[in-house]
């Protein structure tokens, strides 16, 4: 294995002539110019602009301070304490605090942390429960504001790539980027020239620190790709179809020609799982500790790696399965089939949760983004489509590629990479939650061989490409989430921290039965079984204890309580109730009639029988 870092000075001079007006690469902090970039990358720079807007500006006159602190009124439920001081407060030294009150929070950031869907109506409930729910909602809102405010503390900013006015970012070559960026980032671009062992599949570990790859001709290796320290390198003497890290970098699942094997980071074979045979694709669901395998025999098998049991073996009844991906938002497995459909699977169900007809020909590749809202598919009809996964499964955008994409991958910040032949195209969107716009690619790169595997490295601006010529690590500025969470997946964790994390992760292993399309369903009010329970209760009791008893007038205290007046009062209330009922029914009736009669129909003699 040899590492060939691409350097800027071995660029052929021919190209320089072609691009006559090419400017010298410049670092982004060197000179601040006005942003008029027409060919600017659509994704990352926007956020920077917004950030700049949000930065509180020092007011010219002190009276407008209060208004400029809050960007919009309803977003902050608790008003900053305005009453206390008319102007900015003075301390003992006489210095003014120009930023009084809590920091401002932009609305869209608060929206990101909001967990309660207010459009959903709650079922009829007691006032006690309702008030409790309302209190919980208010608390939730306050929490989301606090969480949004904590975003100010995040240390890192995402990367970006912008062209000069008129310059297309897709024309920028890797060599140029390598030349422009700092040494540490330049070292992340490398090629492994491994022509001998055929097209490679690769996988990054969840922390983004480790890389494992396996070649068709049996070459399996794992390395810490940041320090370039090799962990193990073996030849399994069998075709390797796919390779996947399990929950930590210490375990490695390799789909070999016949069976599924599990190796540790020394390259020692720990298990040979013969119940999973002729596997084509692997997916690991880290929170459920499930290894999903798709086999040539058409079975989708879920293996629980924490106890070593097969949780479910589902027959997809669609022939050979070789396209599989997971939805990282809800752990649903997406399978692509040769009839152009993509089916969604959960281990709890024998049937697919949904089937989406995506293409006219067979499906070649599927990818789902990290928020679980968009799915990108490419098919034999050379189309690349992006679907909305929230309920409707409608295509949002589509485009025809000259060759069609064989491999797709989403990055953490919503960039879409597609491998077509020996070229990798990357598209960017407006941000994390928006779909990538397919008109203009953000970056393109030509490789030494045909693409066989694609994955964005988590928490690094790097795209790993396995191809027939080896492995390429591409620089894609703005691909990754800049700020990781230390308790979830920490690239810099120590051994102790990893052990601690492993124990905690195993303790809160989510049961496989909980995989469904909406992972928040568990926290919502179960209206269906509530109604069922209510019905059963009524049947059991034989009467409804909640119904209002008929009105019984109370006898008056001071001698005016004659039977006639009691009956009168009773009738009065009854009449009132009756009138209310009639009024309600009258209000509903005209709507019904309008619906029943089609517009412009001729009156028929049979209309008189219509009720």
């Amino acid at each position: 294995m040899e590492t060939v870092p691409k350097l800027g000075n071995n660029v052929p001079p021919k190209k320089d002539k072609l691009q006559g007006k090419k400017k010298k690469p410049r670092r982004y902090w060197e000179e601040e110019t006005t942003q008029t970039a027409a060919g600017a990358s659509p994704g990352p720079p926007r956020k920077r602009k917004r950030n700049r807007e949000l930065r509180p500006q020092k007011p010219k006159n002190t009276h407008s301070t209060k208004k400029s602190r809050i960007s919009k009124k309803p977003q902050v439920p608790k008003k900053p304490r305005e009453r206390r001081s008319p102007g900015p407060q003075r301390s003992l030294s006489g210095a003014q605090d120009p930023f009084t009150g809590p920091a401002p929070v932009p609305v869209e950031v608060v929206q990101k942390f909001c967990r309660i869907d207010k459009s959903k109506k709650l079922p009829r409930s007691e006032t006690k429960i309702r008030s409790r729910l309302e209190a919980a909602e208010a608390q939730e809102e306050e929490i989301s504001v606090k969480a949004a405010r904590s975003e100010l503390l995040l240390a890192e900013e995402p990367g970006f790539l912008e062209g000069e006015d008129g310059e297309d970012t897709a024309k920028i070559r890797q060599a140029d980027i390598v030349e422009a960026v700092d040494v540490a980032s330049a070292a992340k671009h490398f090629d492994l020239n491994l022509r001998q062992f055929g097209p490679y599949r690769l996988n990054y570990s969840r922390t983004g620190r480790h890389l494992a790859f396996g070649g068709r001709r049996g070459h399996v290796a794992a390395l810490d790709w940041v320090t370039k320290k090799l962990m193990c390198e073996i030849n399994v003497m069998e075709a390797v179809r796919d390779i996947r890290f399990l929950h930590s970098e210490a375990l490695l699942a390799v789909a070999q020609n016949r069976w599924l094997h599990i190796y540790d980071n020394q390259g020692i074979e720990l298990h040979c799982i013969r119940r999973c045979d002729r596997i084509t694709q692997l997916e690991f669901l880290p929170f459920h500790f499930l290894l999903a395998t798709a086999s040539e025999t058409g079975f989708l098998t879920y293996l629980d790696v924490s106890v070593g049991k097969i949780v479910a073996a589902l027959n997809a009844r669609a022939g050979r399965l070789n396209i599989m991906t997971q939805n990282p938002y809800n752990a649903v497995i997406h399978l692509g089939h040769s009839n152009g459909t993509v089916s969604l699977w959960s281990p709890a169900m024998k049937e697919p949760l949904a089937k989406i007809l995506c293409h006219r020909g067979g499906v070649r590749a599927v990818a789902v983004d990290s928020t679980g809202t968009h799915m990108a598919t490419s098919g034999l009809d050379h189309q690349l489509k992006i679907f909305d996964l929230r309920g409707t499964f409608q295509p949002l955008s589509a485009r025809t590629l000259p060759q069609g994409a064989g491999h797709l991958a989403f990055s953490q910040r919503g960039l879409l990479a597609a491998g077509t032949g020996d070229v990798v195209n990357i598209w960017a969107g407006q941000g994390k939650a928006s779909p990538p716009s397919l008109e203009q690619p953000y970056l393109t790169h030509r490789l030494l061989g045909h693409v066989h595997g694609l994955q964005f490295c988590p928490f690094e601006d790097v795209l790993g490409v396995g191809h027939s010529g080896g492995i390429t690590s591409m620089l894609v500025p703005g691909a990754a989430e800049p700020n990781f969470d230390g308790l979830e997946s920490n690239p810099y964790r120590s051994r102790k921290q990893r052990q601690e994390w492993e124990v905690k992760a195993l303790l809160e292993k989510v049961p496989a039965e909980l995989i469904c399309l909406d992972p928040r369903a568990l926290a919502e009010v179960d209206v269906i079984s509530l109604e069922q329970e209510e019905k059963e209760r009524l049947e059991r009791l034989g009467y409804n204890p909640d119904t209002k008893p008929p009105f019984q007038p109370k006898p008056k205290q001071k001698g005016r309580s004659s039977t006639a007046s009691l009956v009168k009062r009773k009738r009065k209330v009854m009449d009132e109730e009756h009138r209310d009922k009639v009024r309600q029914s009258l209000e509903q009736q005209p709507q019904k009639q309008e619906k029943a009669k089609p517009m412009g129909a001729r009156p028929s003699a049979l209309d008189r029988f219509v009720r």
Partner: protein
Amino acid sequence: MKVKMLSRNPDSYVRETKLDLQRVPRNYDPTLHPFEVPREYVRALNATKLERVFAKPFLASLDGHRDGVSCLAKHPKSLATVLSGACDGEVRIWNLTKRKCIRMIQAHEGFVRGICTHFCGTSFFTVGDDKTVKQWKMDGPSYGEEEEPLHTILGKTVYTGIDHHWKEAVFATCGQQVDIWDEQRTSPICSMTWGFDSISSVKFNPIETFLLGSCASDRNIVLYDMRQATPLKKVILDMRTNTICWNPMEAFIFTAANEDYNLYTFDMRALDTPVMIHMDHVSAVLDVDYSPTGKDFVSASFDKSIRIFPVDKSRSREVYHTKRMQHVICVKWTSDSKYIMCGSDEMNIRLWKANASEKLGVLTSREKAATDYNQRLKEKFQHHPHIKRISRHRHLPKSIYSQIQEQRIMKEARRRKELNRIKHSKPGSVQRVSEKKKRVVAVVK
């Protein structure tokens, strides 16, 4: 071209020396924390299981009495001191931290019927079957002195209960009638009766300190105002009430321990329907005591168990029993709201934790945070069937378990019979009476 790559300085993420704490940068972005709800659910499930694993409420058994323990009293000033009276006329004072008896008095001949402490904690009163009320000093006699009461009042009838006023030097006894005594006098300031029956217990209201409640064997609960010469009102229930206890936080709420296996929480302003019926015992309820927070109370029963009820729930949240504990006669919740004491027939006083799975002792801040977090999770997911099943499960002795089954069948049969009666009679002629109203016979003012 302008380019910026994500490039972190490892020094800002890795600790400098081994003596430092590990750096843990946080990012609360929901996309970095997927499966929030399922993971919380699993955490809640684990917390519930751990709660049941750590539920070991029994702390100590104080033995020494030579007959069944008939009454208990808390010291108003010292958490560690407890007084108990036995059926052979012996009174013992216990130190809970040492779990030892620190003083022993042969106070009466026959039963010690009631015991109560003075609000300043210097003395205590006992009543017994020998028709006397005795006042004792809390501290023992000095060297060479004999154990003697401060005062002794000889009465005409047997006193069955005693309670001291919460602020003034006044106490009340009950027997044939409710007597209110001044500490300095040997005859009662006033005596109040309503009907002719033996009154089994009398209790002062801790907030509205002039109010008194008593229960008598003619099935009624009578309320008195000390400032008036006559009783206020009374409610007659189906069966006899053994004791009542006032809620220390809500002045008008009290709970009555009844012979019909239930406890009734009443609002004294509206006695015609109880606020809540607490049913879970399978035999007569003998004693009840509120926690100082006023949110829970504990009840002792003839079925050899004690149960803890939340005030607003009709079912108990906890049941305590041991193989050796016999009929529990008296129960007290300690003033720090952490422990429960019960005195039973087989001469022992038992000390329990009020919260079965609570860790005793000083908690570190991380432990505290973890327990708080787990508590919140358990609350959030308490209605999920799997979690509910685990958190509700209690092991019961066979006798109680089979009694519960039997009583369930009986209750079902009664309900079915009532339904049938309504079904087969003229509509409207048989009125359905709610379960709460059924139990109250009458309210007299």
